[in-house]
Each structure stands twice: as structure tokens, then as C-alpha cells.
């Protein structure tokens, strides 16, 4: 079954769990600043998760001079092949959505690779704002989140 990464912006409460999960899943440091999914926060419990769209006709792939970005046909993700990357940062400048990230520590480009078909951020999302769903379900509009009565498991 073909799966797709679905983001329901209206359900995001900007808790930052996906950022942490991503930082821990990629690299040993676990620094939230090194996440590949970014939440733009704009008020209490309000945010917009920003993550790679895995575009069909991707600008990052078009500008890459060494063909270091290639689509994984199994997961549908555009993956960065570390051994081919020359760190020229053209993809960082070229991505129209700002989803190619430059890692100064390791001197290489970071991008969402859908964790090889099992995105680690998804199980940590408490409201289902991000989900890994079959393609057929991708167009179903998400249920609105009732923020007044929002209670988490083992809540405060």
C-alpha cells in the first residue's frame, strides 16, 4: 500500500514533539535545532509544521550538480546521498519552501527522508497533526481540533 505523509495544519498545537523526535532519530545529538521538521510558532498552542513536500518536479533535484538527491521509489521520499554531496548548498538556496537545511556541524545538507518509510515524528504527535496514511485517505479533511476541551493522556 502506498503511504503518504499528511500534515493537518489545523490540528497542530506547537508542542514540538515532532521536532525532538526528528532530532533524536537523525544524528546522535538530539538537538531540536537540528530537526528536519520545523514548527513556525505564532502564539500559545498555535503553530504550523513545515516539512519537505517531496515535490514531484523538485527544485532541489534540478539544481543539484552531482545528482546527490534522488527519489526513493519505495517511500516516495527524495533522499540525499551523502557520498555524492559536495556541500555546495545550491539546494538550500533553491528550495522554494525553505525545506533544505544546512547543518554547519557536519557540513552537509539535511532533508526529510521520511525515515525510510517509517517517519519517527508521526507516533509522537499527540493530536494527529502529522500522520502517515495510505494515499487514498490523504484527501479526507481532518476533523477540527476542539482546543477548549483538549485533554492529553495523563493530563495536567
Amino acid at each position: 500500500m502506498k503511504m503518504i505523509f499528511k500534515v493537518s495544519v489545523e490540528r497542530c498545537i506547537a508542542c514540538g514533539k515532532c521536532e525532538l523526535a526528528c532530532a533524536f532519530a537523525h544524528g546522535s545529538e538530539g538537538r531540536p535545532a537540528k530537526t528536519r521538521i520545523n514548527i513556525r510558532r505564532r502564539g500559545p498552542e498555535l503553530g504550523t509544521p513545515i516539512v519537505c513536500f517531496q515535490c514531484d518536479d523538485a527544485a532541489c533535484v534540478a539544481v543539484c550538480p552531482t545528482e546527490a538527491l534522488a527519489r526513493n521509489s519505495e517511500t516516495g521520499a527524495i533522499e540525499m546521498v551523502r557520498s555524492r554531496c559536495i556541500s555546495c548548498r545550491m539546494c538550500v538556496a533553491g528550495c522554494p519552501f525553505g525545506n533544505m537545511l544546512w547543518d554547519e556541524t557536519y557540513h552537509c545538507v539535511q532533508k526529510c527522508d521520511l525515515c525510510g518509510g517509517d517517519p519517527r515524528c508521526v507516533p509522537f504527535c499527540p493530536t494527529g497533526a502529522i500522520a502517515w496514511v495510505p494515499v487514498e485517505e490523504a484527501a479526507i479533511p481532518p476533523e477540527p481540533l476542539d482546543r477548549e476541551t483538549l485533554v492529553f493522556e495523563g493530563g495536567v
Partner: protein
Amino acid sequence: MPTLTVNGRWVTVDSDATLLDAARAAGVEVPTLCQFDGLEPWGGCRLCVVDMSQANWDDDWFKVVTACNHPVEEGMTVVTDSERIIETRRVVLDLLLARCPNAPLIQKLALEFGIEQTSYTPNPEPDDCILCGLCTRVCDHIGVSAISSINRGWGREIAPPFNEPPPDCIGCLACAEICPTDCIPYETSNAHRKIWGKEFEMLRDPKTGEAVITKEQAQHFAERSGVPMTYFETSDRSKRREMAKTFEKLQVVK
């Protein structure tokens, strides 16, 4: 898909693979300096030499070849750790150490082969450049060709034409980034960049002032890839903010 043996281990690889790919597939480490997956193999550093015997050759007949650019064939036998291979690599590293006595990468590799001090006359003008050609090859690959190797033999070096700031250089730093011994100097900031004696102005985000590429780089890659120039004009941070704004409308707060 040809099947061959590397150090006695059977391995099956794609027909367009090289001996180096086969060795890696078999889990055998072969030292390399001038090899890079994104570029054509070149066989310049001579460190990846291996013993190779084809299926129809006599059993004890082996030829020394560079693994990085030698294609695989059905039934080949490859040996990467024979005495003469280790000796060949030792001589290569001894010579490289004589040329670049101060390069940490060469010192480390040489030490792995038991060389602490070169047995040849050390280079009177120590230089970290090992002439692996990665910088010129990556420059060619990008379609710029601003630098090349000049002179021959002892006097060979990497330089822009006439040792002047290269007019074709776009300031992408690919040469400096790919250099295995980090011997190409450059300066970069959000405002300016300098490499090979040429000054560049960065393409800065109008709001935040951040920049990752030069104006020449944006122009070159916009022409080459067909990506509109407007994509390059703002920083990734600004673009994420703009995208978030677009999606804010969707958020209905109850």
C-alpha cells in the same frame, strides 16, 4: 550481473560496477583519496590498487590495476591485501608524505602503513595539495571549469588561468569543500566571499541579510537547471515563514 571474488568472498554486483564497488559490496576496505561517488573515477592517487585476475587467465597470474576505474567481469578474482599491493600502497603514501609532510590526512594514512617519516627527500616547500584532481573535476562537472592543473612533473599545481582571479569562477566553494586535505583557502560571510583571489558579493535575503550562495552561483544554476531566479532570492528561514503564513488561514481556532 557479474559474480566475482574479492579476497575469497563471492559477491554479485551490477554490470557497470567497478572493482572498488565490488570490494565495498564484499565489505573489504580499499583506501582511496581521489575517488568521489558523484564524479567519474580518475585513477589519480594510485592508492586503490588491487591484484586482479580474469577467469581465463592462469591461476597464479595477477595484474595490478586501480580498483576505482576498472570494470568488473564475470569470474574475476580480486585480492586487495597481497604483499605487493600493500608494498605499492606504502610507496605511494611514502611519496605523498614527502610531498605533503604537514597534511594530517596523509600522516594518518601513512601511519596505518607504518610510515612515520618519509624515506624520500621531503618537499622543500611543503604543500597540502596531493594533486588528486577532485577540485578541477568537480569544477568541470558543475560546468564552470575555472581552475585546472598547470605545468608538469615537479612543478605541477592547481591554479586558475595565468594565476589571476578566474573570470569564470562562480564562488560555489565546491572545490574547497571536496578537497580531501582542505588545502584551498577561502573566506565567506553573509556579505562577501573570496576564493582563488576573486571577490564575490553574496545573494542576501532582503529581510534577514542571510546568504548561502553568491550572485554568480544563482545565475549559473538558474540557467543550467531552469529553476527561476526568484527561488534563490530569499533565505530558507524566510521561505519557511512565508509558507507558514500561507497555511495559517487553514487554522480555525475554536
